């Protein structure tokens, strides 16, 4: 499609809606004069940039990080079999699986519950810290990272669902019962908070240079 304006080779010198005194509707892509408050086509509230974006990102990020601590310290599952009670944490459960000859599932759990959450914390922090810096050449990379973080976030819920499935299924009176441990709640809160943190991130700021971004001209 046709870009408005000229693209200077190798830089992000693209004309933006904001740079032209226009505000973009993020739902339906229409642009309106900067002072417009509600999109006349789809009724979405218009904001050129979400000024509170970074505050929301950091607040939810912190919630996610804090909740991730008890999620790893407390047991995810409490298994009771005949005479023996066993509590397993996220990492402990994965190690058990590994020892019982299910390395692939152990890997899935480790990726979904450790690698992805920790990676997301780091990625969101990196993106939030670098917003507004004049790293123009890396904008495309940072945007790709953001899209990946947004896409992958929901998949961390897998471990919470596994706990739910096991605790509803393994209810065999005295033979064996599985109960959800307190870590399941902490982990779910951590995943949900991190998802909201990523959603609060206004990705258009990745492309802005200078912070706050250039003010519109009348």
């Amino acid at each position, binding site marked *: 499609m046709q870009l408005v304006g000229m693209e200077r080779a190798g830089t992000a010198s693209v004309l933006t809606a904001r740079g032209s005194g226009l505000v973009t509707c993020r739902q339906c892509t229409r*642009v309106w004069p900067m002072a417009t408050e509600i999109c006349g086509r789809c009724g979405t509230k218009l904001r050129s940039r979400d000024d509170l974006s970074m505050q929301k990102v950091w607040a939810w990020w912190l919630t996610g990080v804090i909740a991730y601590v008890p999620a790893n310290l407390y047991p995810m599952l409490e298994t009771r079999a005949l005479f023996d009670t066993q509590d397993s944490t996220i990492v402990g459960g994965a190690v058990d699986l590994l020892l019982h000859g299910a390395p692939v599932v152990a890997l899935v759990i480790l990726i979904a519950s450790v690698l992805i959450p920790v990676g997301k914390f780091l990625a969101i922090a990196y993106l939030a810290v670098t917003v507004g810096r004049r790293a123009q050449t890396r904008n495309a990379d940072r*945007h790709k990272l953001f899209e990946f973080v947004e896409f992958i976030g929901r998949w961390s819920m*897998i471990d919470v669902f596994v706990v739910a499935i096991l605790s509803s299924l393994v209810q065999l009176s005295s033979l064996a019962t599985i*109960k*959800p441990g307190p870590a399941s709640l902490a982990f779910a809160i951590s995943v949900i908070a991190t998802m909201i943190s990523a*959603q609060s991130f206004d990705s258009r700021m990745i492309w802005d240079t200078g912070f706050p971004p250039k003010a519109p001209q009348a």
Partner: protein
Amino acid sequence: MGDGLLMDGPSEKVLVDVAPENLMACSECDALYQAVAPEPETLIVCERCHHVIARPRRKAGMTVISLAFATLVLVVAATFLPFLSISVAGVENSASLIDTALAFSEGGLAFLALATVALIILIPTLRMLLILYVLVPIVFDRPPARRAKSAFRMSIALKPWSMAEIFVIGCAVALVKIVDLADVAFGPAFWMFSALVIIVTLQERLLCSWSVWNALEQPQS
């Protein structure tokens, strides 16, 4: 330093004569484009950030509606049928989605029970109802439903919170975890949910929200 601001320079003049109605911008990076008409079978990609802005398709509306109906039937049926069953030394148990969601209701984890019901049953169902509400009038050339715009906006906002497909993978992981401990078998609801995953993925590929907004804008009589 002076070079840093976006688009100081000749191209600002390009815009002088273009009215906002004839422009559109990328929702993810704000790059400004000349507006295009929704041509079927084209892919509109932002040149700067490569975000897929639109993917209009001919006759996608009808397919999306049928898939939404199929999803509704499957979710409702799969909610009450068992999806996994287990037996050890003659003791048996099976679990349905609703059992699973309520597994957290004991032991003070009520919030988690609520969240699980919402993420795997309520939100997917609600999304499909909203999509049907918005699309059925459009596809059958009727005037848009009342508050169709709010309904469609809500269906988009709910998208990341609709987690049925993640639940299916969770089933498979749970199965492997206890396969040593007991005899485990997939019940009918598991296969229904697996079908659901394929349907939801297909539907997502077909449903182009940009085209829906265009359609909702046309005043139809």
